[in-house]
């Protein structure tokens, strides 16, 4: 695989000392890391490590009890989800969260929601300006459809699509938002090898062609090591390691977390 020449920029997002608990369960303890412009940042860790919780904090679904998030230089404790979307954060979900009754096209069009401005009175009448605006955004959406090669399923209600394609539509919806930071929660889960390769290619293309910064959670270590610039490793809500794929791969704590530590020494 040829390494892509990209310029990694300044820090886009920084999370500092984030702690999040639900009742007695501490989901995240004192997590800090940063994401730089244009990079692909992977978040890995065993099940229940707090990876998805971390994404939920970043896009405002969860509000951490402690810590601060700095996005594009603005510091805040918590963010509301639609504020996060306005700021330029888009995401996909672990268990595909699409609008199942709506067509592929309509699903992707919802991603344009924030970029459309005609108010409710025009909308009600479906007249002139509202209609023209609709057409402009349709055009942009068609480009994304071409980019992700899903022309054939434009009109199909997404509930009827196979899982792999649903994941792709979800990515398309996120891309329609033209985000600066794209959060992908297990974009390749449940896919076969071919679908995984396609998805990898799309992620790299998005990163390269649109310059979108990407943070992704993924379990397939081969994929993670191949496509990410830096990796942060979580385990039981704590940060275990942070660095380039090679650094992380060699880290003893990470190896222990994944393979398990033999207990016999202590018990003997």
């Amino acid at each position, binding site marked *: 695989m040829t390494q892509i020449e990209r310029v990694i920029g300044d820090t886009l997002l920084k999370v500092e000392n984030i702690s999040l608990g639900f009742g007695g369960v501490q989901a995240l303890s004192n997590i800090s890391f940063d994401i730089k412009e244009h990079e692909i940042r992977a978040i890995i860790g065993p099940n229940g490590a707090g990876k998805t919780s971390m994404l939920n904090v970043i*896009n405002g*679904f969860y509000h951490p009890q402690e810590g601060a998030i700095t996005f594009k230089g603005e510091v805040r404790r918590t963010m509301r*989800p*639609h504020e996060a*979307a*306005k700021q330029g954060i*888009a*995401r996909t*979900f672990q268990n595909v*969260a*699409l*609008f*199942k*009754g*709506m067509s592929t096209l*309509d699903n992707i*069009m*919802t*991603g*344009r*929601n*924030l970029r*459309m401005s*005609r108010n*409710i009175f025009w*909308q*009600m009448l*479906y007249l002139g300006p*509202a209609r023209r*605006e*609709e057409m402009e955004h349709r055009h942009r959406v068609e480009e994304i459809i071409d980019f992700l090669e899903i022309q054939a399923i434009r009109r199909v209600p997404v509930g009827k699509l196979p899982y792999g394609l649903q994941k792709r539509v979800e990515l398309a*919806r*996120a891309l329609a*938002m033209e985000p600066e930071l794209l959060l992908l929660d297990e974009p390749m889960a449940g896919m076969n090898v071919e679908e995984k390769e396609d998805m990898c290619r799309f992620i790299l293309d998005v990163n390269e062609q649109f310059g979108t910064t990407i943070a992704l959670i993924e379990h397939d270590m081969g994929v993670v090591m191949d496509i990410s610039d830096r990796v942060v490793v979580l385990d039981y809500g704590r940060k275990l390691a942070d660095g380039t794929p090679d650094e992380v791969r060699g880290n003893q704590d990470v190896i222990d977390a994944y393979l398990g530590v033999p207990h016999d020494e202590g018990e003997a």
Partner: protein
Amino acid sequence: MSDSLLYFIEVTIGGLLAGVMYSLVALGFVLIFKASGIFNFAQGVMALFAALTLVGLMEKLGVPAWVAIIMTVGVMILLAWLIERMVLQHLVNQDPIILFMATIGLAYVLEGIGDLMWGSDVKVLNVGLPDGAVDWLYDFNIYVTKLELVAAATAALLVAVLAIFFQKTRIGRALRAVADDHQAALSVGISLRTIWVIVWSVSGIVALVAGIMWGSSSGVQFSLSLIALKALPVLILGGFTSIPGAILGGLIIGVGEKWAEIYLGEYIGYAIENWFAYVLALAFLLIRPQGLFGEKIIERV
């Protein structure tokens, strides 16, 4: 044509037109249920409240009907905003039953406010809609009032506008998105609060239309809120999430109860009209619980 056939046609038309009224109330229910999963018990009272406000504004301020209607639309939008601010916002993520209880409370509050502001006596609502029999139909010995035809046409227009709004516009799409998946809707930057205000406003306006039609034909009185109860079987028939279902359900119940009254009355006793809708709903619950157009409930185990 024979007399009995003419009579049948007249009864059927009368039933259809009564059904349109049920449909209008049911439509308001469906809108709110679709977008927020809330069963709005206050929908009928909203129709009453809208009609009371309209009559009140016309009497107290002496403004022409169309001005009063525009002002009432404003009041209904303000009401939607207040409901979101004071009730819904504080009950986000609560069980549907809690939200349902909140709407029962809302129903009584609205009824109380209507009573306090405009008094509890029966009022005549005259916004200048035509009245009296439709002449050319009357020539065939069929008695249909002009008001009923206007109500039917208005309902048809309303449904057409709503259908375009839901299918073709950004806000309509956002409404459907919210109905489908709250979290995903939030993640693409749709504000739930804005959507709720919009959907309650639209529902309020539909309630106003229903209020005008009912009020014009039988006066604005507190029993108006009872028509909400008839909307319940309509919803069970049509499915809680389907706009066409609400319309068709209303028509079926309207016609069905008239037929039952006329043709079954002499065998099983009259006043069937009062309970027919509920028995039909009960039958539907046993045979097809999702209604004619509702989404089939499939539970994964």
